Every structure is written in structure tokens, then in C-alpha cells.
């Protein structure tokens, strides 16, 4: 279990407890957090669960999956701190993680 803070582009914060094994994307979708679309359902076939992770946390996360950067090329305003939230699996180590949601996904 990890407490994850999702911060919408307009500054609205949601702090959610997400069970281990779920992805950061699933944590958002199951709790109706707007700002993460996840059109493909977690198959890394779209880029609509795009989030930004600030440096302190970015380096602590498991490395990007193969192909994740290719998909991020197609995200809305990607930056070096971009991740696909469907590729971040929640574990105890992620307790306190903060992700920032982009202005939009499409």
C-alpha cells in the first residue's frame, strides 16, 4: 500500500491509498481522478495516462519500460520528467509519491 498524491493541472490535489500491484494509472482511474484518460487500458498503446514526476521521485521509480519513451513522444507536451502512469507499479516503496497531471491528455 502506498499513499500517492495526484495533482491536477489546476492545482487540485487528490491523496489516495493505492494497493500494491496496481499501477499508478489504475489508482487514478478507480478513484475517478480526472486528468488521466488511459484510453488503451494500460497496454502502453497510447499516451493518455501521461504524468510528470519531479526529479526527487523520478530517480526512485523503476526504470522506464522498453517502448515507453516511444509512446511518450506522442503524449501531450512531454518533458524529461514524463512517465506513463500505467507503467509504474505501486509498492510500499512508492509511499508518498507525487505525480503531476498534464493540462490534458489529448
Amino acid at each position, binding site marked *: 500500500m502506498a499513499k500517492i498524491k495526484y495533482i491536477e493541472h489546476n492545482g487540485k490535489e487528490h491523496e489516495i491509498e493505492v494497493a500494491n500491484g496496481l499501477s499508478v494509472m489504475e489508482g487514478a482511474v478507480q478513484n475517478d481522478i480526472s486528468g488521466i*484518460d488511459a*484510453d*488503451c*487500458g494500460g497496454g502502453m*498503446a*497510447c*499516451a*493518455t495516462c501521461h504524468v510528470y514526476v519531479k526529479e526527487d521521485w523520478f530517480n526512485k521509480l523503476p526504470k522506464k519500460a522498453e517502448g515507453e*519513451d*516511444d509512446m511518450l*513522444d*506522442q503524449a*501531450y*507536451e*512531454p*518533458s*524529461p520528467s514524463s512517465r506513463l502512469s500505467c507503467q509504474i507499479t505501486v509498492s510500499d516503496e512508492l509511499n508518498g509519491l507525487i505525480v503531476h497531471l498534464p493540462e490534458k491528455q*489529448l
Partner: protein
Amino acid sequence: MIDTDVLIVGAGPTGLFCAHQLGIIGLKCEIVDNLDKLGGQCIELYPDKPIYDIPAISECTGEELTNKLIEQIKPFNFNSHLSDRVQEIKNENERWIIKTSKGKEFLTTNIIIAGGVGSFEPRKFPTKNCEKFEGKSVFYSIKDKTIFKNKAVVVFGGGDSALDWAIELSKNSKVTLIHRRDEFRATPASVEKLKELQKEKKIDVLTKFSIKDVKGNETLENVEIKGDDGEIKIINTDYILGFFGLIMQLGPILEWGLNIDKKLIPVNTENFETNKKRIFAIGDICSYPGKLKLILSGFHEGALAARGCFKYSRPNEKYKLEFTTTSKTVKDRLGVKE
């Protein structure tokens, strides 16, 4: 006007297999898809990725699955209308009149929406000012490459489309390629070619930059780009091309008066009909308790929706389940010779 029993919206695996099920029970169908080929996400997003959960096929790629499905529906002689999109619908005497963006008209008893998460459209620049120049000096696809001759062109993107066009246009234009990171996801041969042209100074390559703004009054003058480290550059150019892949949008279907919940269309699980009579939804786009977004679920949903269409198209006949192993009628429809 094309008269048919069923119009299928979307030619992904679900739509294709639904055409098979309609053929088996003797209904005519037409398929419309916004892409220029059959196969939907399978062919557009992951043609080379192996799929392991199609019943009885331990492994096949998106492209192989598509080709097998096309092969399977060949006997039914269905028509597909590609690079076209359903636009508006009108109810007339218990039937639907549908217009497409290319101006085609269909008269159909039933509509089956198998649209996945929507139709594919090119992803555009986030920069608001780009809209002003879209179709004039900002493009997301190329129809006529001669307009770029002897002009300055800035290409954005790191995939095959971006590299292929940068390489092609560098023969006759001054090309700058801009990508947000060092790595390119295009095929290795294209990346190799790009590096060669960069060395020969035939293409300028700028990485770790993305678009910030475009300037110009009547005509485009320059594009401002921003580096990861905050560096700003201004490049004078005649044209800007963006190749950021495709996004999926529901589009005009949203205006049809269907119930929509989180971009999905709720259906009943008896025949996959929506809140509108004679409009069905199957595959990733439909939702019901327990819905799984798997190709195999789409096959099942299509089989039931096809029977749902039968009731409306043949109101005076009683539907009878016939097996392909034994039914002479079905075998005739399949063109099987005994």
C-alpha cells in the same frame, strides 16, 4: 445511397469478426473506418507486437490477426469504406440514414459501433497559434510534396513518418528536424540515413527541443523552440510539419444522442443494443458490468449483436441457431463445396 442491413463503424478485429457473424446469418453489411486500411488498433498501433490470448492461436501479431480475420470474411463479399468517417445519422421509417465525411450515404436498418476508443486523428501541436496556419503552412500529413520545393521546412517528431519525410524533403528543401529526445524510434535504416544526411549538412537535426510558439501575420515567419535546458531558438521557416502519431477521438458519434459514460457506451448484455433502438455497440467502446477490454470479448459481443440485428432486419423470420459444421444454408453462404 447504399442500402444494407447493418453498417459497422470501425474495422478493428471486433468489427471484422462481427461482419463474419452477420454473413453467417445471412445479413448484408458495410464497414466504415477512418484509417486507410482494415485492422484498427491492431494494424495501426501494434502490427508487430505478438498477441497471446486469442483462443486457439497461441501467438500471432496484430497484423497476422488482421489478415486472418480478413481471410475469414472473404466469402461474404462485404464492402469496406476506408479513410472515411460516419458523420450524422437520421431516423427515417425505422431505418437509419447515415452520411460520411466524404459524402457517402447509407440506408441501413442497424448500426453496430465497433469504434474502439474512437477514430484515429493526427496529434496536433499544443501551441494555440499553430491553428491559424493549419492547412496552409502547418501540416500533419502530406498530400502534395511539390509545395515544399526550394522552401525551408521544419519537421517535428522522431518516428518513421517524421524521418521518412525529413529525408525525402531534404532532396529539394532546406530541412530542420526537431525531436524532444536524442533517440529516434524510427527504423534503424532511416536513423542511419538521417545521420548520414546530417553529416553531409543536408539536414539540420536538433534534439531535446520542442515547439514553443509560431510567429507570422498572414504567412508563417518563424518557429520558436525551447530546449530541455531552457535554451530558446528561433528558426525562420516556410512550413512546419508535425508527426506525433495518432490520437483517438470519439468524434461525431458523441452527437448521436447515445448515453455516454466516461467515453464508453453502455449496452445491455443480451444483444449489445445501446439506449437507441437499432444502434448497437461492441468491443472496447461498450461498457457493462464485468466488461473486459479483450479482443475475445469483442468477438462474443459481435456474435450477439449480429443476432440482435437479425430481429430488426428479418422481423418475420424466427432466428434459428445453425452450426457451421452441419448447416447446408450456412455452408452455402460460406461458399463451401461438398
